[in-house]
C-alpha cells in the first residue's frame, strides 16, 4: 500500500491496485470545495496519470457527509467578471478531466452530497449511494442565486433525463439514497454494512450505465426547446426573472449551451455578480449564523412537555416528536388533546413513508391530561391562551414540579415575560420560545430574554431550538419581539389602503410583485382578524385608529381563515389554497413602497433599540420569520441598497 500526503486529501493505493481518495478538509467539520481543495485534487489526478490505478474510489473522511458543495465564502470575492468566469472554469475543467480518465471511478456518497459535491460525483463513472437518512443529493445553487456551472447542467440531464434534472436544478430540492437509485442518479443504493464491498465490486464491474429511455432522449434532444419553454413557464409561477434570474439562466445554459456556462460569459457575469446572488449568499451566511446560536451550550433535551393543545401547542408538540424527542402534551382532558393528535398523525402520515418510523413518532407523542410529564421534562413550553393570570398560575405550578436545570418557556406573543415571571420562585428562569404558525413550515423561532433573565437558560433554549432543526433568533423582551412588531404596522397600512378603496386583491398583488410569499391582506386572514385587532391595539397603543375594514369584518364575525371568511372567502378552509380571490386591479404607483415603509422603519427602530443584536439579525429574523423577499437580503439591507 502506498500513500502520499496531501493537506485535504488522503490517497491510498491498495495491493489490488485500487486507489482510494479520501476527502477530509483540514480544519473543518464538513467538506467544501475550496480553491485549495480542488488544486490538490488536480494534483491527485496528476499522480494517478503517472501510474494509472485499476480504479479510483472517492470518499469522505467526515462524519458529517460527503461534500457540502463549493466554498461559499469564495462567492463573496467575485468583484470582476474575470473572477466569476475563473471560478466557473476551475470546476468545469477539473471535473471534465475527472470524467475523462481511462480507469473506472466511483463516488461513495454517504451523507450530504450537494452542489459542487454532486457535480464531482456526477463526473465519476459510478455513483454509489449509502442508504442512510442523512444521505441527500441535490444541486441547490439556485437557492443562492447562481447555477451549477461545474458540469451539473451538463451531466445531471444526461444521467436522469431532462425533466428530472431541471426539476432538481430549478427547485434545489434534495434526493435521498433510495430515490436516487430509482431515478438513475445513483447506480446502486446499499446499507453502510456492505458499502466497501459494493464499492469495489461496482468499480471493477465494467458495466455500462443504464441508458435513458427513448422518450427521455427525445426530450433532451430534438424536443429540448419544448422542454425549456415548459420549464420557463413553471419557474415563472414561483419566481419573477427580475427578482430571481438564476433559474432562467439554468434553463438557457442547458438548452442553448449544452450545460457549459463558459459558452455564455455575459450570462455568467449577469448572474454571478447580480445583487440577487449577493443577497442570497448573505442570507445563507445569516442562516449559518442563526444555526450557531446555542452551540455554546451542551444542553440536550430528551423529553419535552407542552401545555396547551391548541393549534400552536399541538403543532409544537407534534414537531418536537417528529424531530426525535419524547413529548408529553397536556390540556384539560383527552377530548381537548385528541384533535391535536389527529392533526399530528395526519401530518406525519404525509411526511413519513416507513410504517415503523411512523409508529415510533406516534409513540413519542404522548397525551398527558394530568400533566405528569412536566416533572420529567428537560424543556417545558407553555402555549395556553393569552391570559396573564392563567399563564402565571400555570407557570408557578410547572416550576414547582420541574427538574432543576430544565428550561421553562412561554410561547406568548403578546404578554411581557417580566410580568409572567413575577410569580416564580426564580423569575430569571423564564424564557420565551416563540414559534410561528405553521410550526412545520416556519423555520424561525424567537428566543426571548427578559431583562434580568438567566443567560444560561436563553442559551439552553437556543440549543433546544437547534435540536428540533429550527433557527433560533435571540431577541430582547419587547412588545411583538421582532417579527410581529414589524408585521403589525405593515398589515395595518395594508388595511388602511383597503379603507381608501384599493381592493384587497390589488394590495396583495402589489406585495406579491415585490416578492413577498403572501400578500398582507391574505396574511391578516391567515393569522385571524381577532389576532390582528389585538396585535394592533397591543402594539399600537389603546388609542390607535384601527382600519375600518378590519372593524367591520371583525364585528360581523368574519375572523379570516378560521371562520371561513375574512377579507376573502376560504372555500376549503384549511390552507391558503382555498382562498377565493377576484382579479387584482392595476397597481397604483408606489403602493408597495408605501406599504413597506412602516415595516422598514420599525425594523430599523428595533435594531437601533437592540431588540435584536444587530441589523443583520433583524434582516435574518424578518426573512425567516415572515418570508420577506429573500432576494432583497432583508428589510435593512434593502433600505441600505436603496440609499446607496
Amino acid at each position: 500500500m502506498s500513500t502520499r500526503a496531501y493537506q485535504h486529501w488522503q490517497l491510498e493505493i491498495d495491493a489490488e491496485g485500487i486507489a482510494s481518495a479520501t476527502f477530509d478538509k483540514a480544519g473543518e467539520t464538513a467538506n467544501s470545495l475550496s480553491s485549495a481543495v480542488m488544486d490538490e485534487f488536480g494534483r491527485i489526478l496528476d499522480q494517478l496519470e503517472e501510474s494509472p490505478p485499476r480504479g479510483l474510489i472517492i470518499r469522505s473522511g467526515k462524519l458529517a457527509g460527503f461534500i457540502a458543495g463549493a466554498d461559499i465564502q469564495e462567492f463573496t470575492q467575485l468583484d470582476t467578471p474575470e473572477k466569476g468566469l475563473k471560478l466557473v472554469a476551475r470546476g468545469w475543467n477539473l471535473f471534465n478531466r475527472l470524467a475523462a480518465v481511462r480507469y473506472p471511478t466511483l463516488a461513495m456518497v454517504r451523507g450530504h452530497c450537494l452542489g459542487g459535491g454532486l457535480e464531482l460525483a456526477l463526473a465519476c463513472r459510478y455513483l454509489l449511494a449509502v442508504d442512510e437518512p442523512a444521505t441527500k443529493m441535490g444541486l441547490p445553487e439556485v437557492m443562492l442565486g447562481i447555477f451549477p456551472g461545474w458540469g451539473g447542467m451538463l451531466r445531471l440531464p444526461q444521467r436522469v433525463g431532462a425533466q428530472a434534472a431541471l426539476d432538481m436544478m430549478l427547485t434545489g430540492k434534495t434526493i435521498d439514497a433510495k430515490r436516487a437509485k430509482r431515478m438513475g442518479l445513483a447506480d446502486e443504493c446499499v446499507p453502510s454494512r456492505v458499502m466497501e464491498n459494493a464499492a469495489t465490486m461496482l468499480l471493477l464491474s465494467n458495466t455500462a450505465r443504464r441508458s435513458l429511455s427513448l422518450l427521455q432522449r427525445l426530450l433532451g434532444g430534438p424536443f429540448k426547446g419544448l422542454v425549456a419553454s415548459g420549464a420557463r413557464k413553471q419557474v415563472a409561477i414561483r419566481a419573477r426573472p427580475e427578482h430571481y434570474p438564476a433559474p432562467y439562466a439554468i434553463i438557457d445554459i442547458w438548452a442553448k449551451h449544452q450545460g457549459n456556462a463558459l459558452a455564455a460569459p455575459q450570462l455568467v457575469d449577469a448572474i454571478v455578480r447580480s445583487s440577487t446572488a449577493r443577497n442570497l449568499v448573505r442570507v445563507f451566511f445569516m442562516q449559518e449564523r442563526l444555526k450557531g446560536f446555542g452551540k455554546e451550550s451542551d444542553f440536550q433535551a430528551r423529553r419535552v412537555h407542552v401545555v396547551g393543545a391548541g393549534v400552536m401547542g399541538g403543532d409544537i408538540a407534534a414537531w418536537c416528536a417528529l424531530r426525535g424527542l419524547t413529548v408529553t402534551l397536556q390540556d384539560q382532558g383527552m377530548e381537548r388533546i385528541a384533535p391535536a393528535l389527529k392533526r399530528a398523525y395526519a401530518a406525519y402520515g404525509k411526511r413519513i413513508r416507513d410504517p415503523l418510523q411512523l409508529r415510533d413518532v406516534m409513540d413519542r407523542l404522548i397525551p398527558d391530561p394530568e400533566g405528569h410529564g412536566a416533572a420529567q421534562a428537560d424543556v417545558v413550553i407553555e402555549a395556553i391562551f393569552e391570559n396573564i393570570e392563567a399563564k402565571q398560575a400555570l407557570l408557578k405550578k410547572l416550576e414547582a414540579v420541574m427538574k432543576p436545570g430544565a428550561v421553562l418557556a412561554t410561547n406568548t406573543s403578546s404578554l411581557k415575560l417580566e410580568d409572567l415571571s413575577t410569580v416564580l420562585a426564580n423569575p430569571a428562569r423564564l424564557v420565551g420560545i416563540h414559534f410561528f404558525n405553521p410550526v412545520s413550515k416556519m423555520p424561525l423561532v424567537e428566543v426571548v430574554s427578559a431583562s434580568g433573565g438567566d443567560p444560561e437558560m436563553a442559551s439552553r433554549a437556543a440549543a433546544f431550538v437547534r435540536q428540533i432543526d429550527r433557527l433560533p433568533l435571540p431577541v430582547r423582551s419587547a412588545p411583538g419581539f421582532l417579527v410581529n412588531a414589524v408585521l403589525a404596522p405593515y398589515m395595518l397600512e395594508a388595511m388602511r389602503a383597503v379603507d381608501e378603496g384599493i381592493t384587497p386583491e390589488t394590495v396583495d398583488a402589489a406585495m406579491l410583485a415585490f416578492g413577498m410569499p403572501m400578500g398582507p391582506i391574505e396574511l391578516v386572514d391567515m393569522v385571524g382578524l381577532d389576532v390582528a385587532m389585538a396585535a394592533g391595539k397591543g402594539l399600537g397603543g389603546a388609542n390607535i385608529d384601527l382600519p375600518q375594514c378590519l372593524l367591520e369584518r371583525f364585528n360581523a364575525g368574519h375572523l379570516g381563515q378560521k371562520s371561513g371568511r375574512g377579507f376573502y372567502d376560504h372555500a376549503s378552509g384549511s390552507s391558503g389554497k382555498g382562498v377565493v380571490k377576484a382579479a387584482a386591479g392595476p397597481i397604483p404607483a408606489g403602493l408597495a413602497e408605501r406599504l413597506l415603509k412602516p415595516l422598514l422603519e420599525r425594523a430599523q427602530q428595533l435594531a437601533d433599540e437592540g431588540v435584536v443584536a444587530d441589523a443583520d439579525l433583524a434582516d435574518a429574523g424578518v426573512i425567516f420569520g415572515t418570508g420577506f423577499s429573500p432576494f432583497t437580503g432583508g428589510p435593512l439591507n434593502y433600505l441600505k441598497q436603496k440609499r446607496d
Partner: protein
Amino acid sequence: MAFQPVYIVDGARTPFLKARNAPGPFSASDLAVQSGRALLMRQVFAPTELDEVILGCASPSPDEVNIGRLVALRMGCGHKVPAWTAMRNCASGMQAIDSAIANIQAGRAQLVLAGGTDALSHAPLLYNKVMVMWFAGLMQARSLGQKLGMFAKLRPSALLAPVIGIMKGLTDPMVGLLMGQTAENLAWKFGISREQMDEFSVHSHQLVVEGRAAGHYDEIVPLVDAKGNVYAEDDGVRLDSSLPGLAKLKPFFDKKYGRVTPGNSSQITDGAAWLILASQAAVDQWGLQPIGRISDSQWAGLDPAQMGLGPVHATTPILQRHGWGLDDIDAWEINEAFAAQVLGCLAAWESDDYCREQLGLPEALGTLPHGRLNVDGGAIALGHPVGASGARIVLHLLHVLRANQARRGIASICIGGGLGGAMLVETLS
C-alpha cells in the same frame, strides 16, 4: 421458605374494547404501549430504570414476535431493559406478574413492569390444510404449464373456508372441546340452569354500570386511535342488559340444546393492563408509595374438560396455608369467563363430594359470602382480552380493597387447558 411480599406501586389499564367482527383500532402492542407509557409517565423513575418488562399475551399478531420486548422498546424503556413475553393462555397477564414476583424474590430484579395484553379482534384467518398444500404445490411448479395446472386444481371452496384463528385459540387441544363446552360440562355437573347464568350476567352488567358511576374505574387510561378518536370506557357494557333480552339468545357452543350463550359468556375483547412491582429495596431507593402488596400466589392443574373450576383448585391451597375460610377474605375477583364457570366454582366449594374427592378436604369448604365477589362486575360485562384479564383482576381487586378500607383479597382465574391461578393481595395498613 416464606413468601416474601412484593409491592404493587401503581397500575393502569386500557378501556376494554369489544371485538365487532373486524380488527379493532389497536393492535395488542398498541394497547400495551398506550396504557404503559401513561403509567410510566407518572412515576418518579424513568422507564429506563426498570429492571425488566414482562408482558402476558396469548395471541400476538405475526408482526409482534416477543411482544413484551417490542412494547418495552416502543414505550422508551431503552435497549438495556430486558423484556419478554409470558404465555399461559387466559392467565398470561397473571403469569407475567407471578414471574415478576419470582424474579424480585430471587433478587434478580427490584423494579418490574408486568401486565398483559391481547387484541382478540385481530386474531388471524388462516389458510386451511387443503390451501396450504395447494400453495406448496404452486411453489414447486416450475414451468408455466405446471403453474397453470395448479390453478386448474384450485378449489374456491377451500379458498373461502379459512380457519378462524380465534376458534382454534378457544378450543382445548387435548380434549377438543370449545371453552364454552367445558362450561356446559360444569352447568351439567352442578345443575346450573340457564336462568341462573343469565341472572348472574345481568347482575355483572349492572355492577359495572354502578361501579362506573361510583368512580371505581379510574384505573382506565383513555386511548386515542390514529384518526384522533378517543376511547375512554369499556364499551361492551350494556346499560340495558335484562333477563328477557338474554333469554332470546341461542346456545352457541352446544347448539340448540345447551345453556351457554354469548350473553352469559365473557365477551371477545381487546385490552391491556399493567402493574408496577417493586422490592422493598426499590421502594426505599425511589421513595415509592405502594398501593398494596402481593403476599401469596398459586397455580393448580385439573381436568381440561372442567377447566372452569381452576380458581377452586388454585385458591384453596392459599386459604389452607393461612388457615383461612372463604369468609376470611374481604373481597374476591374471580374472572368471569362464563357465568356457568363462576357459579360452578361456588357450587364446588359448597359440595361435600367435590371437596372430598378433588381437594382432599373432609367436607365442603363453605359458601363464599354474598356481596364480596366481583363487586364492580366482571368479564361478562367488561370483556375478556385473554392475556390482560389476569392482570386486570389483580389491579382492580386492590382498588376494591382500598375503596372499602379492607385488608385482603384473592384474585383468581380459570385457564384453558385445565389450570387455575390465584393471587393473594393485601393493602398496607
